[in-house]
Structure formats: structure tokens, C-alpha cells
């Protein structure tokens, strides 16, 4: 079982993907911290960090620009940052605006898009726009070459695959063949305005309303000068995702459903020929082997030791519940490991306290970066 440090050796980009509620943000931060400790200049891009985690990293006033995290904060947790740790919170709308400004042929075209009401909706509301902008920012930072490693915490979405589809959906939206119809001088914009009317259009007007159609036509027109630029850029972003120096890490929980999703996501990555690095399973009740034992007379031995048969029964019941969870986790992880063949599955235990501060982050970090021997020692220290 390789540690994260080995998986990410020689990589430029690490993308942490997975469905919501599995600890992606914390895992991304712990990975970035561990790699910075190893001497790299690392930047973690996050979408929505836990407030206290953000505070402890000094991210309070962070916007769309990277800021360095004070290494002294980690020294108190026993982690020496030999390199540099930077962090930024991604602002999807600001990134989209920047992109439009860059792609627009002139100021007038830029303002026409930025001021369009449809654009103002899509820059935040279009499904996938947040995902796409995360990749866009990643691409921009990578091109600048300021960092040795970029760690991306992908936006929370119900389906982790939304992330992979995002560039496709977004470019389809602005480049679709039908869009050409809108943009021709005799195209829809003109037709909506009344010159020459197709029957289909008049039916469409009837159910959609003239106003909305006119706004849409105006939006597509405003975008027309940028389509080629967007297309070329999306192609390069996709190229970066498939680059061997990029690494996808799938983050999941040990329950049946998250494991199913991780299996599915792994298959999709392989199908899309994207570089898969491994799976990190968070909040695992383990090791099951050590939770076994006790046997039938556990309750009796507990009663003897504790001198309280009611307490002994509760301790035994609780232990049985934990064993059941640990066994479920072990079964699910075995299924995951079989699916991924020899590739890495890294387990992070379910810690007694909710991880949202630097101490918790440091503890997770120990598990992610432990060598095999250290891992055995860590495990032995726990129930």
C-alpha cells in the first residue's frame, strides 16, 4: 500500500474527487500540507472549507488569489514545513469574469457579456460552471508555473462525474452548432427581432416569450467573438487533465454507497484515460482484526474487571456494534481493492473527534503519509 507521498512523487497536479460529505476538503488540505512538509511549494485550491479549518490556515480574508499559510502554525502540531504551503478559495464567478475579459476581443465585447443578464445567471447557475471554473483556475496556475504541486479540492456535487463532464457541457453550451444559427446576421437574433420568421420560432416565442428569446439571442451574439478562444482553451484544459503528471485521487467513505461511487468513478477515469492515483477511504472503523476477540465471555470478563454488570453489558453491546461497523468497512474496502486490483487504497480511521482544526488535520496527515511500518504502529495504538 503506497503512501500519498509516493503516489504524488513527480506530479504537478493532484485532483481530489468524490461525492459530497466524504471529507474531500480536509483530505486535500492534509495532502497539500504533507507535500509542503516534504519541501515542495504547494498550493491547495479549495471551494468551500470549513470555517474553522479556514481560520486555522489563516484563510479568513482569502479570495481568488493564493496566499501563503504561516508555517509556524504547523510547527505547533509537530509538522515542519520544509517547502511552502499556499491556499486559495476559488471564486467561480470571478474566475469566469476573468476568463471572459481575457477572451474578449475588445472592451465593448467584454462588457456586453458581463452585463448580460443571462450571463450573470450562468456564471453562477449553469450546471457545471463551478466545476469548469475550478479546472480553469487550475490551468491558469499551472501555466504560471509558480508552484511545484497544485492540489484541487473539487466542488461538492452529488455525482463526482459532473466534474469530468463540466468542460464538455460548458463548451457545448457556447459552441453548439445551433449557436451558429443565432450568430449569423440573418440568424435567430434577427429573426426574433421580426425580420423573417420561421414557424418553429413563432411557436417557440409563444411558449417561451419574446423577451427571454431576445435576451438569449443577445447573449449568444455577445459571446460570438469568443467561441474559438473558449474552445481552444477547453481543449488545453482537457489535455492537462490527461497529462501523466496529473494525478486523480478518489476520496470516499467506507459505507456501501460511497464505495460504489468510488468504484464507478475509477472505471470512468480509466475509460477516459485519465491518470488515476488511488483511493482514500475516510472515517474507517478499523482494524477489524483487532476489534475481534473477546468472544462469548467478554461480558463476564468485563463484569469481573469493572464490578458493574450493567456497565459491562453496555460496553459489550457497544463493542459488538463497533465490530459490525468495522466488518462492514472491511468488506466494502476489500470490494474496492478487488476492483482496483493492485492499485492503492489508503485508509484513514474514523477519529474520535470531528476533524475541522489544525490538530485534526495533522492527525489525518500522519495516516496519509505513513510508511507501511508506521501504519502498523499507528494502527496498534488504536482500538
Amino acid at each position: 500500500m503506497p503512501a500519498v507521498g509516493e503516489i504524488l512523487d513527480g506530479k504537478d497536479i493532484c485532483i481530489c474527487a468524490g461525492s459530497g460529505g466524504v471529507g474531500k476538503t480536509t483530505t486535500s488540505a492534509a495532502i497539500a500540507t504533507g507535500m509542503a512538509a516534504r519541501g515542495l511549494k504547494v498550493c491547495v485550491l479549495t471551494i468551500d472549507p470549513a470555517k474553522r479549518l479556514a481560520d486555522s490556515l489563516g484563510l479568513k480574508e482569502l479570495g481568488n488569489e493564493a496566499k501563503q499559510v504561516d508555517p509556524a502554525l504547523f510547527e505547533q502540531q509537530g509538522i515542519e514545513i520544509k517547502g511552502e504551503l499556499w491556499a486559495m478559495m476559488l471564486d467561480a464567478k470571478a474566475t469566469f469574469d476573468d476568463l471572459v475579459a481575457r477572451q474578449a476581443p475588445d472592451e465593448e465585447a467584454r462588457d456586453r457579456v458581463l452585463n448580460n443578464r443571462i450571463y450573470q445567471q450562468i456564471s453562477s447557475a449553469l450546471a457545471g460552471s463551478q466545476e469548469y471554473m475550478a479546472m480553469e483556475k487550475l490551468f491558469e496556475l499551472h501555466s504560471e508555473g509558480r508552484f511545484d504541486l497544485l492540489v484541487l479540492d473539487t466542488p461538492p456535487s452529488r455525482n463526482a462525474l459532473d466534474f469530468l463532464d463540466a468542460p464538455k457541457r460548458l463548451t457545448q453550451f457556447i459552441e453548439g452548432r445551433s449557436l451558429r444559427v443565432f450568430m449569423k446576421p440573418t440568424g435567430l437574433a434577427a429573426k426574433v427581432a421580426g425580420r423573417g420568421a420561421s414557424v418553429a420560432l413563432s411557436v417557440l416565442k409563444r411558449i417561451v416569450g419574446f423577451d427571454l428569446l431576445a435576451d438569449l439571442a443577445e447573449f449568444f451574439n455577445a459571446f460570438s467573438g469568443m467561441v474559438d478562444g473558449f474552445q481552444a482553451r477547453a481543449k488545453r484544459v482537457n489535455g492537462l487533465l490527461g497529462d501523466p503528471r496529473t494525478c486523480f485521487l478518489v476520496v470516499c467513505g467506507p459505507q456501501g454507497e460511497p464505495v460504489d461511487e468510488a468504484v464507478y468513478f475509477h472505471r470512468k477515469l480509466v475509460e477516459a484515460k485519465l491518470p488515476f492515483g488511488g483511493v482514500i477511504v475516510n472515517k474507517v472503523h478499523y482494524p477489524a482484526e483487532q476489534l475481534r476477540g473477546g468472544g462469548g465471555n467478554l461480558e463476564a470478563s468485563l463484569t469481573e474487571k469493572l464490578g458493574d454488570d450493567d456497565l459491562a453489558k453496555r460496553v459489550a453491546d457497544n463493542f459488538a456494534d463497533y465490530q459490525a461497523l468495522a466488518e462492514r468497512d472491511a468488506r466494502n474496502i476489500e470490494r474496492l481493492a478487488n476492483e482496483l486490483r493492485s492499485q492503492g487504497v489508503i485508509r484513514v480511521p474514523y477519529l474520535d473527534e470531528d476533524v475541522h482544526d489544525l490538530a485534526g488535520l495533522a492527525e489525518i496527515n500522519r495516516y496519509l503519509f505513513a510508511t507501511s511500518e508506521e501504519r502498523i504502529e499507528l494502527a496498534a495504538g488504536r482500538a
Partner: protein
Amino acid sequence: MRGYSHSHPLFLPASEIARNHPVTDLLDKRLVFVTGKGGVGKTTVAMALGLRAAAEGKRTIVCEVSSQENASRMFAHTEVGFHEVEMEENLWSISIDPDESMREYVLLQLKVRAMRDMLFRSRIFNYLAAATPGLKELVTIGKIWELAQLDRKVKSGRKYDLVIVDAPATGHGIGFLQTPRTFAAIARVGPIHSQAQQLDRLITDQEHTGVAIVALPEEMPVNESATLERDLLDDVGVAVDRVYMNGLYPERFSGKEAEQLAELAAESDDGLRAAARAGLSEHNRARCQRAQLSRLRRRVEAPVKTLPFLFEPDLGIEGARQLAKRVG
């Protein structure tokens, strides 16, 4: 203002009026949105509410709003698609597909078949239907509205007493409920404008429509639930009816007992030590969770109801059935 006259409504901001509205019990409403952060158990809670309402004799339908079909997975039935499938007595399920909703919408709008066919064939229509931001969400809410009508628009549609929606995860959640309002603003006039307004009225109708947030006893989900409640009030004009704190561990051991367990863990080995440590873990987690529960109660306005953590692994529908006793 519907159904309730506050003594001085004019002196109160809209959010206050929404908040002071008398609480109709959640399951006595016609439509309930179950929302929250991803991975908190929304689907299970929505299903538990559905089972509970059905057991009380209400004809209930649980709607899934994405293509994942958790509900059908839970029932281990054949796939639930864009049609109403009977799950149990009084309980139906549907997975609302936006493309199908769009199709149905057009069918209901255009009675002349030739016109419909032409529209469906039209490239511009198909492009706009796929590409217009928020349109998918809008037609999805349109379908939810249709399901909640006593006089159903679709031919021989079943009448439901209660429609429960397993809403998309937050991040997208507020966006989802806000869609009609946004659309009403984008399309200033015309049919989309008036229909979007109608849907917005449905969502903000406190007497008939309820919203429940599902949270977990952890830092981030508690913060996000509080933010979500605030945003729903400020941006959509909806007061949350109830917050479910899901997955709460039992408090099995007192502080004094935990000390005993710590001693036991230190002096014994193997099975006894492992059992004592599991007890200590449970004690610590339960304590942290209680602290999060207090935070949640301090930070949200809506009443908080707790749901227990289910130790039996991967329960599916059985889990929802167990929670059904507690959600009412």
C-alpha cells in the same frame, strides 16, 4: 400573505412574517422539500417521511430530483423512472428527469400535435432546451407542482395528499428552490414569467409547502445548515420548518464510567482493551456530537429533531423504516 394575519404585518420584514407563520405540522402540508449538504442522509430521511405519511394513511409520493435514483435503489425495485411507481400501500416514487419534464410541459402547453412535432424537431428548440441555464431546474419544479395539484394536468393523474421531494444537495440546493424567482426576473413578461411566478408562489406558500433541512452532528454540516436556513429565508422567502439532526450516537457512558474504561484500557490487553477503547471512542464521539447538537440548536431558528445513528450497516429501506417512527 396567505392564511394568516399578523397584528402588524406591515411593520415586519418579509423574513419575520415568514418566521412567525404558524407551524402546520410538516406532514400535514401538501409538499415538503428535504434538503441539506451532500452525504447527510437526505434520501433516507425523505423516504422515512414518505413511509411515515403513508402509514398514517396519506397518499404520498417521494420524488427524486437527479438521475441517481437512490430511492429505487433503496426499494430494490425495478428502476424508478419518469413515471409514478407504487412502492407500498399509499406510497409512490418517481425520479424526475428534466428532459421528460420539458417534453411533458410542451405537451401540456401546445394542444395542436403538428405544432408540437415541429417544435420537437426544431434544432433551435432542442438547443435552447438543453442550454438555457436553470431551465432544467425550472421544468423539474414545474413537474413537482403538477404532482402536487389536486386537479392533475396529466391525463388520469393520481391525486396525492403529500408530495415529498428529495432535493439536490446544497450548493445547488438554494439555487434549486430559487430557480422560479430567478426565472421570473429574467423573463420579465410572457408565459415563462407568469409560470415561474406561479411556481415561486408554490414554494413560498408556508401553509402548504414545507422545507426540512437534514444535518449531521459535525462542524461543517452544522455551519452549512445554519447558512442554508438563513439563505432560504433571505433569498427565497422560505422559513425552514424543521431541521433533522441525523446520525446521533447514543450516550452510552457517563463521564465517570469513561474514566473507568480508560483505566481498564490501560491495564488490560486484547479483547478487554479493545472493548474498553471502543467504549471510550463512543463516549468521545457522543460528547462531540452533543456539542454540535447544542451549536445547531443555538444557530437555527427552526425546531431541531434528532434521529439516531443506525449501527446496523447499509440498511437501505430498513433504515428508512426505523427512522420513520422518529421523523413525525
